């Protein structure tokens, strides 16, 4: 795994100026997103009962999950390319775990810059909210970060699994990825009922961001909210089952 990462890092750093510029544009995109909610808050004050720092927590957790998963799981995100070119056949004959190989086939490490900035923003929000970072709170924050990554990972794997059927990548998968990112970066509680249910039960991003956020900011006291990110692991199950089925019934189509 680490060998793959260092390999990709080395190869991408060969194009230095391009890598730097891509990273800069990642940072810029990140800043424009921050600016969006900052401007809205500046104009409107608090939204429902959420302060801007609570938005920052949700926002940074989601952004971290999205950028980190996208950086490492680019192979799943661009899985249709593997199928179309026939390179997937090559992976199947190697005596190595297929997931690891797909991950290793492509990475987009300039996205990590965004993850890094997300962490900075998260720390800033935690300081501003005067949350005392005892080991338990720290653990919860780490769980939130991991949970967010896991949910995006599930979406990417599921999207890749669909490619076995469709060959061509589906735009609908992008809607899920970017939609989850852009919806869930605000506390889910500020939306209407339908959206809340969607992001709690269907794409359960709220359990990695919103509910534990309520706990660490002291708006709810039940510890149940804090351990919710663990449940994100469940989302991996259907994704992996479908992907495995896809691998089993895979017929090569490239040359």
């Amino acid at each position: 795994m680490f060998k793959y990462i260092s390999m990709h890092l080395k190869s991408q750093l060969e194009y230095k100026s391009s890598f730097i510029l891509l990273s800069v544009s990642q940072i810029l995109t990140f800043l424009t997103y921050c600016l969006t909610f900052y401007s809205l808050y500046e104009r409107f004050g608090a939204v429902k009962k959420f302060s801007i720092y609570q938005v920052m927590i949700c926002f940074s957790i989601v952004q971290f999950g999205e950028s980190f998963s996208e950086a490492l799981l680019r192979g799943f995100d661009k899985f249709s390319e593997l199928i179309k070119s026939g390179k997937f056949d090559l992976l199947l004959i190697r005596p190595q775990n297929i997931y690891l190989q797909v991950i290793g086939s492509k990475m987009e490490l300039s996205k990590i810059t965004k993850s890094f900035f997300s962490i900075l923003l998260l720390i800033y929000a935690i300081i501003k909210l005067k949350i005392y970072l005892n080991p338990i709170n720290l653990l919860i924050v780490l769980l939130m970060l991991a949970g967010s990554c896991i949910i995006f990972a599930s979406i990417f794997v599921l999207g890749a699994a669909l490619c076995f059927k469709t060959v061509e990548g589906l735009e609908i998968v992008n809607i899920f990825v970017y939609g989850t990112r852009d919806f869930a970066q605000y506390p889910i509680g500020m939306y209407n009922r339908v959206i809340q249910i969607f992001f709690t039960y269907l794409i359960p991003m709220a359990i990695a961001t919103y509910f534990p956020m309520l706990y660490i900011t002291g708006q709810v006291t039940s510890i149940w909210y804090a351990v919710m990110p663990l449940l994100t692991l469940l989302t991996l199950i259907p994704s992996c089952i479908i992907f495995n089925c896809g691998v089993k019934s895979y017929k090569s189509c490239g040359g």
Partner: protein
Amino acid sequence: MRGYISYFKTVLLTNLQYKIAALAGLCTQFFWGFLQIFIYEAFYEGVGDNAPIVYGDLVDYVWLQQAFFALIYIRHRDDELANSIKNGQIAYELVRPYNLYFWWYIKCIAKKYASVALRFFPIIFTALLLPEPYNLSSPDSLVAFLLFLLALVLGSLVLTGIIVILQNIMFFTLEDKGINSVINTIAELLAGLILPIPLLPDVLKAIASALPFRLIGDLSFRIYSGNIPIKEATINILFQLLWICILVIVGYLLTKKSTKKLQIQGG
């Protein structure tokens, strides 16, 4: 001139073939429309009145933006052009007895109109029929509507002018990711694509008003809903004409310069 017109027709007709892609695009557009409206709804709740743009106008803004997305989107990827620079195909474009700048300009704008032609109607139609707070309302007045149409068309000319200039950068860098994506991000912000210009912080509003990006879509959408009154709209339309001239001249000269220096890559 006839050559350019028939080229416009050819590209338009070719791109009208991508109906399934348009359908997928439609879903995306609806999704983003609702997403933005829900976010604004949460923010507008309770405040409403002292906002620089009223909620109803904002909803109109969002739907128009989604319907005419192709005419306002700056991130225009022409993989064909990028590849033709890398693999040397560009040589064929250079031997044609037409001016390369206008050739590209026409190609770009024809693609955009094809894409809009396939998408705008279902979005507008559905948005008009949606229940009360989420729907696209009718234009502020007949004059506003006509000015909206004019500003939208002129806006697409501004946009194409900008895109062709950005494409020229590819001649120097041979790749379209790095620098272009930095410029695009800034341009999107100043064009009101990320947040409508009235909602931006005052500093950015001032910067945006001095640059052409807001003339692409922001202007026409706000004319439609009456957020920009008729008189101000007319002045802004003159600005559009001015910027179209500037962009075309700059783009023309830049293309001339970059094609002179061009080395054909590959064979």
